[in-house]
């Protein structure tokens, strides 16, 4: 019987190639997109969850009562925790991986520094070697399976010597272990592990609590919760951060709710991937992960709706078939089986095509979204299970419902030619409305996200970011920022391409070094609470960034006091101080041990991304704060030449430090990379939903119009013009699209309003956007439907009338 069903199914599908094609293509595209999107969100969600008992693994971070947090730790912390933290089962340092040239072939490999506790804290299984002893010696190196194959081929790597050469070390190791390759959904990616003690700076800094350069992870003992552990760490913190706490007290810093100035905290390992602003940032927002899954669901839904709609629409034309079959003795159940078999075949073809498509599209997808999606997940039993369940659900629902409707047609009425279609006209309309509502929703979101992005990019920041190069000055060559800046000034003095040079502690935009810093100060001035960014700059800051003075004068090397006690403030700072004419006013922040005189006022500018509101800013030259970036303004023609000149200069000045100069306007654009990606996803999703919706509409229009051919014929015989018939046919569909827009608009408004809350500076949501989206949707729908309508209207009426 089933074979018979399938045989008939294949035949019917073949006979109606257009419909089958539309169904298969639509479903396949939807399956492919949904697969990619779901896998991405699952992939993001699965980050670091491969470690056993992952809920016991935490990253240690330091929180100040000012709200500042950092997870960068000093060398002595980890040994101290190991000795004194009773709640910890194991502790390990994890340093950034560092590219070194390894072995005789000098292959570039990423090497990480970790303590022996790494194997107890994390689940990085060893294929060879003993996790308890693998990192026991300073000469031990544990390498991954891939690296072992690269270096030693089929030979057993254990016990083999290995030399590394690189910027920081030239050292001989002995391979003591082989790691299984690191899963792609791991925060830590590396090719090899060695002990931190092998680093060149280790001996000098091993007892320095002030020098911080790595992260520390702990695995708590079973049954210990993080809050308790944090509480028990308080005395530990008081002991080792004694002097910092005393300083904070002296500055007048207020303690936090628990009465602490500085406290060690624990962040779950699984939160690190989603850490967007907290401890280290750089993570993926959870909203983004949910949005991906939701969009995947939308697209599946739309394709499902298409399928139901098409089947329902066609059921009317198939009524006669049902009648004849029933008159020949078929039972409803048998007809149900037959129709369901058809949809099963369609869905199965679509599923296979969809998965194939997803596999084929993966490289482009990864490139577009900067993801590292691998298809290990696709063959994962959970994925396979999910796909099967989803598949069954979709075929049951989308195939089953129309089948059930058709199987219930009554033979007598059908044969009399009286079937007016099932009462599906209503459902069909609802489904079309739902589809176009989703499409309109995404169109509106796309338009608004694009608008906001443009706004962020184009809103003046208060300084001129064009033709300015920012060069991170941090290095390991004992060259201070101030001295580096001085050297740059001396060496570039006569370079005609350079307009001016300055320095700062806070980079403008997100530079290639990927770090940001911020220094703030607050005190009471004439009974007013003032709070300001306390920004270390250097001479010529205003000139380099094209800022002008509103009052007073710029910093000037001719005044010896300028490097000690002069500040320039922004207008909003002046307003905060309540001074009409602030030049000459003397201020003394609680955090400072001296008084400062205001020598100039400048307009407000945005030191940080437009996600946050610009705070009042105070510029100073106090040399006790480090200059970490050089800012170099070039002539419009000299941008590239200056970059090259800087590169060779920097090589001489600080041979150990990477050259990470970049243009400030590129850096400020990078602030919005995440939004950019979001926008791309929405554009593509909107495009796809519209495409799918239109395919559905096209097919439904085709069928509806097919069913109305008799009416059209009659109308033409009676003298109707082509235009009037096209209008008649298109009107019904347009009505649905308009309803969809009306439903989608408030939803889109709400969602986008929520999203815009992320930004201190944002566009107003204007009504014309909804109008434009509506116009787009109506236009596209009209185009889709009118092709059919015009064809129907031009048809010779004789053809449609003689069918009786």
């Amino acid at each position, binding site marked *: 019987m089933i074979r018979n069903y399938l045989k008939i199914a294949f035949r019917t599908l073949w006979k109606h190639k257009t419909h089958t094609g539309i169904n298969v293509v639509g479903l396949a595209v939807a399956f492919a997109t949904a697969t990619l999107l779901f896998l991405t969100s699952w992939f993001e969600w699965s980050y670091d969850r491969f470690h056993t008992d992952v809920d016991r693994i935490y990253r240690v971070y330091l929180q100040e009562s000012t709200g500042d947090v950092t997870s960068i730790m000093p060398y002595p912390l980890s040994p101290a925790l190991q000795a004194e933290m009773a709640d910890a089962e194991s502790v390990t340092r994890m340093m950034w991986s560092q590219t070194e040239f390894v072995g005789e072939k000098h292959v570039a490999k990423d090497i990480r520094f970790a303590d022996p506790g790494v194997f107890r804290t994390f689940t990085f299984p060893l294929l060879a070697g003993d996790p308890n002893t693998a990192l026991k010696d300073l000469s031990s190196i544990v390498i991954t399976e891939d690296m072992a194959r690269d270096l030693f081929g089929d030979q057993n790597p254990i016990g083999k010597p290995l030399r590394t050469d690189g910027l920081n070390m030239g050292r001989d190791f002995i391979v003591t272990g082989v790691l299984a390759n690191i899963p792609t959904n791991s925060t830590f990616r590396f090719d090899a592990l060695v002990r931190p003690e092998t680093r060149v700076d280790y001996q000098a800094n091993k007892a320095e609590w002030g020098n911080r350069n790595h992260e520390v992870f702990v695995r708590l003992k079973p049954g210990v919760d993080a809050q308790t552990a944090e509480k028990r760490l308080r005395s530990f913190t008081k002991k080792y951060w004694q002097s910092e706490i005393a300083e904070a007290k002296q500055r007048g810093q207020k303690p936090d709710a628990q009465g602490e100035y500085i406290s060690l905290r624990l962040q779950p390992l699984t939160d690190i991937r989603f850490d967007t602003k907290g401890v280290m940032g750089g993570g993926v927002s959870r909203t983004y992960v949910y949005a991906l899954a939701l969009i995947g669901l939308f697209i599946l839904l739309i394709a499902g709706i298409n399928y139901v709609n098409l089947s329902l629409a066609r059921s009317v034309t198939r009524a006669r078939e049902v009648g004849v079959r029933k008159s020949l003795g078929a039972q409803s159940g048998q007809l149900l089986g037959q129709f369901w078999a058809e949809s099963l075949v369609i869905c199965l073809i679509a599923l296979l095509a969809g998965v194939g498509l997803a596999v084929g599209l993966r490289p482009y997808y990864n490139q577009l979204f900067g993801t590292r999606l691998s298809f290990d997940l696709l063959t994962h039993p959970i994925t396979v299970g999910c796909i099967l369940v989803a598949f069954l659900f979709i075929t049951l629902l989308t195939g089953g419902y129309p089948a059930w409707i058709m199987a219930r047609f009554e033979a007598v009425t059908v044969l009399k030619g*009286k079937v*007016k279609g099932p009462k599906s006209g209503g459902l069909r309309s609802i489904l079309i409305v739902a589809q176009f509502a989703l499409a309109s929703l995404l169109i509106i979101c796309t338009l608004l996200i694009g608008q906001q992005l443009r706004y962020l990019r184009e809103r003046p920041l208060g300084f001129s970011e064009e033709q300015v190069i920012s060069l991170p000055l941090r290095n390991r060559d004992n060259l201070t920022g101030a001295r580096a800046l001085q050297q740059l000034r001396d060496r570039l003095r006569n370079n005609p391409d350079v307009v001016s040079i300055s320095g700062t502690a806070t980079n403008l935009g997100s530079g290639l070094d990927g770090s940001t810093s911020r220094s703030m100060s607050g005190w009471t001035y004439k009974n007013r609470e003032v709070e300001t960014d306390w920004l270390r700059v250097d001479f010529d800051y205003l000139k380099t960034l094209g800022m002008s003075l509103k009052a007073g004068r710029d910093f000037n090397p001719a005044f010896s006091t300028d490097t000690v006690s002069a500040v320039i403030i922004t207008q909003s700072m002046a307003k905060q101080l309540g001074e009409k004419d602030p030049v000459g006013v003397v201020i003394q922040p609680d955090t400072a041990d001296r008084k400062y005189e205001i020598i100039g006022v400048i307009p407000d500018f945005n030191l940080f991304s437009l996600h946050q509101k610009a705070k009042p800013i105070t510029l100073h030259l106090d040399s006790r704060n480090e200059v970490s970036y050089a800012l170099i303004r070039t002539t419009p023609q000299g941008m590239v030449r200056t970059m090259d000149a800087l590169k060779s200069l920097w090589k001489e000045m600080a041979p150990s430090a990477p050259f990470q100069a970049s243009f400030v306007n590129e850096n400020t654009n990078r602030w919005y990379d995440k939004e950019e990606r979001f926008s791309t996803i929405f554009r593509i999703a909107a495009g796809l939903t519209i495409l799918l919706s239109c395919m559905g509409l096209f097919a439904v229009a085709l069928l509806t119009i097919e069913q109305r051919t*008799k*009416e059209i*014929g*009659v*109308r*033409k*015989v*009676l*003298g*109707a*013009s082509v235009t*009037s018939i096209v209008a008649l046919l298109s009107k019904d569909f347009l009505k649905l699209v308009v309803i969809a827009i009306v439903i989608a608009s408030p939803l889109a408004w709400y969602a986008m309003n929520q999203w815009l809350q992320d930004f201190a500076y944002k566009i107003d949501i204007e009504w014309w956007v909804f109008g434009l989206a509506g116009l787009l949707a109506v236009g596209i729908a009209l185009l889709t439907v009118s092709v059919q309508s015009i064809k129907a209207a*031009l048809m*010779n*009426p*004789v053809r449609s*009338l*003689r069918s*009786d």
Partner: protein
Amino acid sequence: MIQTINLQKLFATEEVETTALNGISMDVKDGEFVAIMGPSGCGKSTLLNILGLLDNPTDGEYNFYGTAVARMTERQRAQLRKGSIGFVFQSFNLIDELTVYENVELPLLYLKTPADERKQRVEAALERMAIMHRRNHFPQQLSGGQQQRTAIARAVVAKPKLILADEPTGNLDSKNGEEVMKLLGELNDEGTTIIMVTHSPYDAGFAHRIVNLFDGKVVTENFHV
């Protein structure tokens, strides 16, 4: 006055080529009532469609009240057809979504007749076909006879010079059929030219002249007096 000379109609489908009309020459004078008879598939409906300007012949000439129409475009034919020809079909071909009144009103809407005149003429037509009391019903709520009377009302409401009827009684019982034939006879008495396809010799008796077709050709013409 309409006149055809040597009309040919070929239908070419993928497998076969059918000659539906094979050289039809005939005249119909103003005010005449002509019945077309012949076995099934001999080309009656095809001829009627061409005479009604719904379709073009493959070859031959057709003079419609002084205009050569055989090679006109669909658009031109539609223009000429509007208001000058009324159609009555065997299967009524009423629009299911419209009421009796609206169905009858349709040709006038397409002719852009002013509203008050439209109302008057529709009501007159309904009155005349004795279905005024059903004006707000939908086609499915009517008997076959009532549906055909509605269709005739719709055919005459624009006062066409020519009415073409394709087996107008084919789906009706004899009583209703008789009624329809009487109505057509009355219309003809008032001066409307009528060409009717029928299988019923009784119905054909209402006509002045019978044209017999066989295999796409006119075989005989019988005249009544």
